[in-house]
């Protein structure tokens, strides 16, 4: 077990390094990065001075080495636009994103657990159809449009909920729904097929033969086992949520990391974008790592 942990950890570090290399060389692939934000009126000497000041005149691997040695100490350089250290910019928004993603995941679970179970238990009948239709809709709606639709219904037509920023608990409602909607679709489908398999198994038949009440059979015994594939999926979903978060954070003006990435895209602020993407990638890799290890704990059959 310990060997597994260490090997997974090493793999995670390597993946992270790979990502940082890819990012770094990608941004230097299309000419000198300084050209993205140098004003047009700048003279060639000014441009040269800026290049030298930012260290862009050194060979690429030297630049990368500087980047990495600073990065492990938490120094991700300065944002080109804001002239502030990138790390402080990211840190300020980091927790907001985590809060929103967690709320969305919680919401998705609250919807998909009952819905998926009901769909499996009443297969082919009313709840099944409802659940599958909702799942289909959730997978066919783009996150940004869901957000805009929600804004239109709840803020324009019925003026009940705030739609920008992250002031109070009320601000959480619409973005959480928008973000969690797509995730709940996938979770419902997964839980349904998982439950269908579990409900067919031997020990469930035994539980029924023992005379246990159907509700205990389903909700206590079947559900617990059906949740196992969901755990790995949730780890994977965490990354997906962070991706969908960009659209949601932009639409709702949520002060999170995803919106920071978007702003970096718009202003072509490459160092800032690199920092955000790196932090993001670490979170995803970390989450997958945790899920991998947790899987060994939850499912005793693979521990051997």
């Amino acid at each position, binding site marked *: 077990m310990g060997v597994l942990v260490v090997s997974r950890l090493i793999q995670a570090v390597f*993946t992270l390094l*790979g990502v940082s290399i890819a*990012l770094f060389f*990608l*941004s230097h*692939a*299309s000419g000198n990065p300084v050209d993205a934000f140098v004003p047009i009126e700048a003279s060639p000497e000014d441009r040269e001075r800026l290049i030298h000041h930012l260290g862009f005149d050194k060979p690429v691997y030297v630049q990368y080495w500087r980047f990495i040695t600073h990065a492990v100490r938490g120094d991700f350089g300065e944002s080109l636009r804001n002239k502030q250290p990138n790390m402080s910019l990211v840190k300020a928004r980091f927790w907001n994103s985590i809060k929103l993603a967690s709320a969305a995941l919680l919401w998705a679970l609250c919807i998909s657990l009952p819905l998926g179970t009901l769909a499996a238990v009443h297969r082919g009948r009313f709840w099944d159809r409802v659940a599958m239709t909702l799942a*289909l*809709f959730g*997978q*066919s*709606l*783009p*996150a*940004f*449009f869901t957000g*805009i*639709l929600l*804004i*239109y219904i709840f803020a*324009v037509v019925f003026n009940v909920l705030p739609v920008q920023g992250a002031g109070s608990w009320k601000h959480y409602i619409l973005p959480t729904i928008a973000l969690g909607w797509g995730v709940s679709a996938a979770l419902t489908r997964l839980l349904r*097929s998982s439950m269908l398999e579990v409900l067919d198994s031997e020990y469930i038949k035994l539980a029924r033969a023992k005379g246990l009440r159907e509700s205990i059979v389903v909700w206590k015994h079947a559900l617990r086992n059906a949740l196992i594939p969901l755990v790995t999926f949730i780890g*994977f979903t965490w*990354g*997906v949520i*962070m*991706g*969908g978060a*960009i*659209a949601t954070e*932009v*639409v709702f003006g949520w002060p999170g990391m995803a919106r920071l*990435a*978007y702003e*970096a*895209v*718009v202003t*072509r602020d*490459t160092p800032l*974008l690199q920092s955000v*993407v790196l932090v*993001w*990638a670490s979170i*995803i*890799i970390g989450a*997958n790592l945790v899920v991998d290890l947790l899987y060994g704990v939850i499912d005793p059959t693979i521990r051997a």
Partner: protein
Amino acid sequence: MAIAAQVSIPIHVRTFRALRKLPSIPTVIVSLTIFLAVFANLVVPHPPTQIHLEKSRQAPAFIEGGEVKYILGADRLGRDILSRIIKGAQVSMMVVAVSVTLGAAVGTAIGLTAGFHGGWPDAFLMRIVDAMLAFPAILIALVFAVTLGPSFWVVVAVITLLLWAPFARLVRGQTLSWKGRDFVNLAKVAGCSNLRIILVHILPNVRDSIVVLATLQVGWVILIEGTLSFLGAGIPAPTPTWGSMVADGRELIRSAWWMSMFPGVAIFAVVLSFNLLGDWLRDTLDPRLRQL
């Protein structure tokens, strides 16, 4: 001597019967979208990029203040929404056609190779596939768009890059299961080259799964392309894309809701139809593919 005549159902009857089984509404929507995509330039009521500032934020025809000429209204620069939606269909379908074809081709090739040869190339390739599947697509697409500048080919390249992994994984799994069958071993014994075995014996059996996955991925590609355009990292102006139309209408949602609503509904309807069609295809061709 009478030989019993072989009764064979003529092909046009067979095709008609097969077509009748298709799910009606999704097929209509998908066919309409493809038709509009192909003939967009002939079908648009107005030139999609023509600016008429005096018609700015014109309401759609069925609301007061609207006129029939601009049946779905106009945007901030007075461009006709319906024409832009039709042109946007063409753009989306082009992105879909190119990237799904490329992604499926590359993914299938890699999956066949990995599955058939096994060993360390298999392990290595599948590790890459796993890593790729773990990353949020938007992030990667954004980085590409920023560093290489947004354009049609950058969008296609990024989507293809993200698309090949599911195909590779599917094809590899299928190849592994077909590889052990008797007819493959017989072919080997008969002296067929590996390439011939892969192409002539394994690939035709994997074909159905590839088609189902491709249809199911179309919806995803449209959503990703839409999100990229919404964030400004997709195909740049003045080409109308559904995503950028939604983005344009965002600030004016109170006064001119049609600017965002109609392209959004278009995305939803088309993606839904492709998903339904893909589900139907999967159930028809091979219900064992349900885990897709």
